[in-house]
Structures are given as C-alpha cells and as structure tokens.
C-alpha cells in the first residue's frame, strides 16, 4: 500500500516538475507578453497543484497536509488575480493583444533613461 502511494506521489511530483520546466520554456519561447501569460499559467495551475498533491501524499502528519492545502488555496486565489493584474496593466499600458509583433522591443524603461 505504501509503495503504491510512493509511486503515485513520485509520478505527481515528477510531472509537476516537468510542467514547471515546460512553463518556463513557454515564458521564454512564446512571442509576446499576452501569449507568455498562458505559459506562466501552466506553472500556476498544473505545475503547482501536481507538486502539492505529490507532497500531500508524502506528508507524515495531518498538520503538514493541512498546511500544503492552505498553500494550495492561497495560490488558487492569488495566481489568477496576479495574472489578470499584469494583463490589465499591459492592456492599459498600450500593448496590443491582437498583434504580437507590435509588442517587441518597446522598452519604456530604456527610453526613460536616455
């Protein structure tokens, strides 16, 4: 029984870590800010929750499992809010959601410095 749980949690942990890497790859590879947001949301949902499930299966006391659950709840509510805040700020800041090419190399911080 405990071997089965170990294997299950190992699968969850490994898949979650691979999803984290895919998400980081998405943040690097995708062409503009709005598409990168989708890459980032893989880490916030799939990656984070699979890792947490894997850790809950390995938890030895009830309190540890509860704390992992609380981390999950906090991430569940804050991650989409933070994503939406970035997206909305970028939309107001003048990035175009329909034209990835327009969002390249317009570094306002660089412009301010000169």
């Amino acid at each position, binding site marked *: 029984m405990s071997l089965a749980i170990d294997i299950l949690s*190992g699968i969850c*942990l*490994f898949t*979650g*870590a*691979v999803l*984290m*890497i895919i*998400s*980081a*790859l998405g*943040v*690097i590879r995708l062409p503009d*800010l709005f598409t*990168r*947001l989708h890459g*980032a949301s893989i*880490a*916030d949902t799939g*990656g*984070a929750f699979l*890792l*947490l499930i*894997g*850790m809950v299966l*390995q938890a030895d*006391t009830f*309190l*540890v499992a509860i*704390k*992992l659950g*609380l*981390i999950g709840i*906090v*991430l569940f509510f*804050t*991650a989409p*809010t*933070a*994503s939406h*805040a*970035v997206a909305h*700020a*970028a939309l*107001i*800041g003048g*990035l175009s959601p329909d034209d990835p090419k327009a*969002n*390249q*190399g*317009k*570094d*306002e*911080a660089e412009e301010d410095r000169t």
Partner: protein
Amino acid sequence: MFSLVTFLVVIAMAMTLIRAVRGPTPYDRILAVNVHGTMTVLLIALAGFLTDRPDFLDLSLAYALLNFVGTLAALKFFKHGHLGEES
C-alpha cells in the same frame, strides 16, 4: 525523488530569470518574476521535505502571500510612480 524534483524546479527558475533579464517590456519582467516567485513557493516547500523540516511550510505560505503583494506593488509603482499618495 525529492532531490531530482528540486533540481528540475531550480532549472525552471533559472529559465524564467532569462526572460526577466531579456524583457523587452517591463510587464514581461514583472510576469517572469511572478512565475519565479510561484516556483520559489514550491521550492521552499520541497526544501522542507528534502531536509525533513516541516517548519519550511510556514515560510512557504508567507512567501506565497508576499509574492502576490509584491507583484501588485511593482505593477502599481511602475504605472503611477508611487504607491498611493494622498490626493
């Protein structure tokens, strides 16, 4: 198992830093740092299991809250130039 998973998460975190350095817009950097923070929350929790010290989970919970507030504060500061002066 935990050491392999921790190693993979650290690699993912290093990859998000590439985007944070390259930009090009400030929003890209804030997004990259936000993802980096989400991964840090899980890295701290994994470190707790790796070293068998469950106290790390409290740090992880606190970091999850700080990461959210930090992202919003950075966005607000970038947009307005201050964090809410009296009008």
